[in-house]
């Protein structure tokens, strides 16, 4: 259970990072803001409350691991790592530019604190599963977290990994589905139906939790529950809003990827400051 102070701190951090995302997008020329904004509250809960990571010792072999399977949401992930202190925020100015460590998708060899290079969809969950098995084989206690997109679940490799994780009772793996309901070509359910999504994961042998992915109390409670599951991996299907926090982007397919000008940025910043969390 989050204290009031903890809750307020997480809210404030998420606001700060959303502002940072808008500033970075202007410098980058464009970004996947929709899917970056939808998962940012989950990411903040992980990096600022739950994950055992230390920016001054980023390669500690016992640290918790995180895999952003929906690598295109790097516009949310990379500023989060900066805000957490893994590197200087000023570096974000180079985003997308020649020889920058930061591009549209994260490169683990170039970004301090980034555990996996991702971007090709359907790759993150098997990698995260490998990390979780790696912990078990080496008798280490670290946990592995992974965020997958909902559209991404069309990729069959996710279900291969889902089967394997349940078969080997990998309970140190927690997966979030960023269920924002949109993909490039439209609504996920129109392009390729995923529902009944919770039943699919249950049938694959996972503990399934369904939460509001913008409510820090629910995110926090779900992570705690996952921590205490025995013999099963946990998936947290997180209902989110694509573009959450920027009113003119919310629930709009076209903000999967986009560029913003200074006028839009001003409106975006104003909107972020008005976010009211329930």
């Amino acid at each position, binding site marked *: 259970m989050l204290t009031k102070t903890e809750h307020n701190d997480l809210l404030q951090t998420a606001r700060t990072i959303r502002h940072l995302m808008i500033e970075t997008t202007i410098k980058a020329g464009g970004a996947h803001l929709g899917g970056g904004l939808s998962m940012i509250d989950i990411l903040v809960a992980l990096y600022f409350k739950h994950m055992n990571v230390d920016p001054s010792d980023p390669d500690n*072999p016992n640290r918790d*691991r995180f*895999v952003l399977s929906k690598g295109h949401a790097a516009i949310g992930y990379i500023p989060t790592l900066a805000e957490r202190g893994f590197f200087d925020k000023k570096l974000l100015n180079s985003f997308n530019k020649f020889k920058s460590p930061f591009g549209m998708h994260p*490169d*683990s*060899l170039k970004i301090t604190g980034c*555990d*996996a*290079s991702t*971007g*090709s969809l*359907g*790759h993150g*969950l*098997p*990698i*995260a*599963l*490998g*990390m*979780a*098995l*790696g*912990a078990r*084989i*080496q008798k*280490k206690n670290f946990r*592995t977290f992974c965020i997958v997109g909902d559209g991404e679940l069309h990729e*069959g*490799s996710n279900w*291969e*990994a889902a*089967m*394997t994780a349940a*078969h*080997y009772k990998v309970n140190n793996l927690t997966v979030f589905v960023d269920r924002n309901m949109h993909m490039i070509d439209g609504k996920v359910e129109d392009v390729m139906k995923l529902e009944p999504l919770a039943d699919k994961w249950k049938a694959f042998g996972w503990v399934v939790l369904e939460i509001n992915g913008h409510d820090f109390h629910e995110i926090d409670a779900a992570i705690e529950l996952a921590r205490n599951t025995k013999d099963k991996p946990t998936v947290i299907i997180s209902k989110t809003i694509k573009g959450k926090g920027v009113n003119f982007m919310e629930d709009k397919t076209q903000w999967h990827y986009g560029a913003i000008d200074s006028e839009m940025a001003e409106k975006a910043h104003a909107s972020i400051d008005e976010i009211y969390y329930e």
Partner: protein
Amino acid sequence: MSKEVTGTTWNVYDANKLTQAEIYGQVLCELGESNPEIVGLTADLAKSTKIGLFQEKFPDRFVNVGIAEQNMFGIAAGMAKTGLLPFVSTMAAFASMRAAEQVRTDICYQNLNVKIIATHGGVSFASAGTTHHATEDVAIMRSFANMTVIVPADGIETAKAVRAAVNHQGPVYIRIGRGFEPLYYKNEDYDFKIGKAIEIRDGSDITIIAMGIAVLQAAEAADFLAKNDGLSVRVINLHTVKPIDKEAILKAVTETRRILTVEEHNVTGGLGTSVADVIAESGKGCAFSKVGLQDEFAEIGYPEDLYAHYKLDASGIIEKVREIMGKDFEEDENWEDEV
């Protein structure tokens, strides 16, 4: 008759009784003792690839993912990220094609310490047909940055390659056959270095550059041609296709002026192409020909029939050498009168 293999420091297996894959399985078990970070993965091919020997010995360090190769290579990447040293074994067709993107993006792009033992390479799974052949894998794997590509001549050399791979930082693709191929080497008592070709026969008229099963065939062809045609045939075992040993190739070009490459692979993109690249970039002229599958999918048949059909056996190689020697290629500086 079996005889003991006397390696430099050990004497674990009887190479004449074991298949190529079994030797690999045993060597991996041996390495597993002293390297606790080694883990094994397979996709329902523990028995066929002989990595099952490792599974029996180290059940807690082994994962069978079922028939799911993409997942397997992703898992291997994740394991390597935590400091483990995964050996992943499946058929070459599935390692290089079904899971090509995972190998490239999850493993090579992140330069991870994952070792791939790809069995049933080339047309070694002969009568299984094209679905289970891999005549493209070397071309695919060598195009991935950071990847090292090794095609051992036989089971003994597979053992050498596996040992070398353990000490090599970064991804390695070791391509072997089905396991029943005859041996070229008698024991492990020779120098094997990743990236360093081995001249197994010296010669001055022509050089055969071979990988995998073709090494033994090329050696036999060279002996035959020396005896019957009076030819001095150099044979190079180019076990590492990438990084390629430019020095050995250019030395052969200068000293023999005729090069024949032999590969159990499509001649597009594999060993022959790799050698041709080196020659072309050097600006040195020489007669050059490639034996292998001529941009075609293979027939069905027993392995020996296929090797004969694609001229990968000693007879085929002899025929190709005679063809090149019959060509009007002069070892002078006049380029106008060459064929």
